[in-house]
């Protein structure tokens, strides 16, 4: 099977969807001639032409708003945010327009809004954010964040084919650092399905994005001490895959939730509450979380490293719940 980078897998998924369905088109800043700030859409303009690969003005609200409009009448727009931080400008279009159309008047808004998220590259406070929590609170939206090339391709295809608005967050730290086997041709990774990336019986780690890789490293370390960690990659953040989450935690009785996003109001809080509500009797230890602290993400490497959850912290958290 071909080995692709995370970025190449996203590109391949997008490409195949554009080949498959002529209703699919791309819009965003510098995505055509330049091929995107991170080169995800390199070569698309040449293949699919200006009508389906649209270089737009710097107008995120209009990019998403226009995507919504086009989707309402039958097209399948994929909008790029140059950095996911700028999605804040389209917040209203997403949370009020896109998310509420179906509920109010039965009209689906099959758009995808995708863009690079996350830290680790010293991008500073406005080029490193994780924005899932702002949208996690909005019924009507779906949110996915792949961690592997396989999932990246399968999820972009699922997102494009979905009948509702999907936010597709791609972690910029993983773009060229993570490689993996990606089948040629068509397959999808269903939205709403988590994936067990490592089997174990003692502790469950629930995580996504870059933190999947750190969690797998942590699992490897504690395995030497005889702690067998099951690592669940959420892949879809909204709607959460309760079944996979709860059955894994019920099995191990111990859960550590790891996310790069900040702590308060982060997704970990919701997951912990679901565990508490549904399988409290199965727990052998309190559910704990390893997250970034409640601050903006700082720029300078020592500060950023301190801010970002580290493997060692995950290891400590796992030991703590294992020995509780």
């Amino acid at each position, binding site marked *: 099977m071909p080995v692709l980078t995370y970025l190449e897998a996203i590109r391949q998924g997008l490409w195949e969807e554009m080949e498959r369905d002529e209703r699919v088109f791309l819009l965003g*800043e*510098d995505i055509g*001639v*330049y091929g995107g*700030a991170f080169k995800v859409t390199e070569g698309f303009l040449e293949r699919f032409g200006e009508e389906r690969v649209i*270089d737009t*003005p*710097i*107008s*995120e*609200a*209009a990019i998403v708003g226009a995507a919504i409009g086009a989707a309402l009448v039958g097209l399948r727009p994929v909008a790029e945010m140059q*950095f996911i*931080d*700028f999605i*804040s*400008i389209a917040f209203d279009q997403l949370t009020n327009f896109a998310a509420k159309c179906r509920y109010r008047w039965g009209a689906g808004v099959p758009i995808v809004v995708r863009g690079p998220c996350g830290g680790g590259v*010293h*991008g*500073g*406070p*406005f*080029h490193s954010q994780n924005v899932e929590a702002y949208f996690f609170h909005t019924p009507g939206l779906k949110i996915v964040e792949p961690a592997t090339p396989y999932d990246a391709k399968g999820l972009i295809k699922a997102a494009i084919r979905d009948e509702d608005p999907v936010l597709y967050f791609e972690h910029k730290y993983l773009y060229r650092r993570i490689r993996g086997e990606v089948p040629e041709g068509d397959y999808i990774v269903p939205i709403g399905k988590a994936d067990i990336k490592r089997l174990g019986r003692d502790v469950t780690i629930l995580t996504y994005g870059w933190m999947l890789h750190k969690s797998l490293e942590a699992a490897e370390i504690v395995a030497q001490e005889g702690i067998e960690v099951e690592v669940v990659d959420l892949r879809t953040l909204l709607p959460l895959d309760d079944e996979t989450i709860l059955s894994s935690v019920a099995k191990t009785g111990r859960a*550590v939730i790891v996310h790069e996003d900040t*702590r308060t109001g982060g997704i970990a809080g919701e997951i912990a509450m679901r565990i508490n509500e549904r399988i409290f009797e199965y727990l052998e230890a*309190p559910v*704990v*979380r*390893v*997250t970034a*602290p*409640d*601050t*903006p993400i*700082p*720029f*300078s*490497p*020592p*500060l*950023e*490293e*301190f*801010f970002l*959850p*580290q493997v*060692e*912290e995950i290891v*400590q*958290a796992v030991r*703590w719940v294992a020995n509780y």
Partner: protein
Amino acid sequence: MEETLTREQLLDMYYYMKLTRMVEERLQRLYRQGKIVGGLYRSLGQEGESVASAYALEEGDFLAVMIRNLGALFVRGVRPWEVFTQYMGKGTSPTRGKDNIVHFGSVERGIIPPISHLGDLIPVMAGIALASKMQRKRSVALTYIGDGGTSTGAFHEGLNFAAVLKLPLIVIAEDNGYAYSTPKHKQMAIENIADRAIGYGIFGETVDGNDVIAVYHATRRAVERAREGLGPTLLEVKTFRMRGHAEHDDAWYVPRELLEYWQKRDPILRLETYLKEHGMADETDFEAITHRIEQEIEADLQYAEQSPMPDPRIALEGVYAETPSVSEVAPLPREHAVRTRS
């Protein structure tokens, strides 16, 4: 009657333009040596408009820059060490490593730092202008926006708001041909950004952005109107981005002829020519200024290079006026880790 700029003022502007260029050249070397953290955005070819517009302000006025306005910061009193430490993420930098590039300032110095989100400064500077009016002060607020940044909703809302309330706001719109890889004609369906002024009911003017004297006078006029209560100005400066969007970008999409055209109109060379033709200065004056800048840069760079990186715990400071006490509900691993990590 328009004032004439004195020799001293012109040489002063020359110093700031040259300082900007030489600091950026130094940054470029550091960038290649891997000594700066993150990207480097140059203002090569645009030093004139930044310097001249900021030079038209007075003590007590407020200025907010975008990524290509380093020169304006120098006019407001920023020194090279602040820029070097910012780019290196040092603990001695104005933001103590929390933010990068020209994202620093202080209300006391009349410098409001931008966020990356283009356009967002304009409503904020309108608010500063509003407060100036409410507090019966003479201060005006000046900020910049690129041709690309004018496509944002915030640009429109901010200008319209300032227009309706007749606020002392000056927006310098920099038409430098491109927004990242996007040429101006894909950004707007008009030729001159200043044409939008009509739609807002405010003053608009387009000037040659590489002619510092023209930019200075045009900004001066805008400042005077603002102080007289005549409201905002949208002042467009025509200039050109002579490098890529940032140093990672070789700008292959910019036609060579355009670069050649603008190279001949370099703002520093033009001021030199003007000064020479008017018998105000000659090569020895320019060399003396250059020499002085070299020394200033060396000293400041040395300080920046010797400065330590920030203590990691600074990451936790300054989110609120008062640091909230960390809740001690359980010995949660993160808190534990934070406390024990050196």
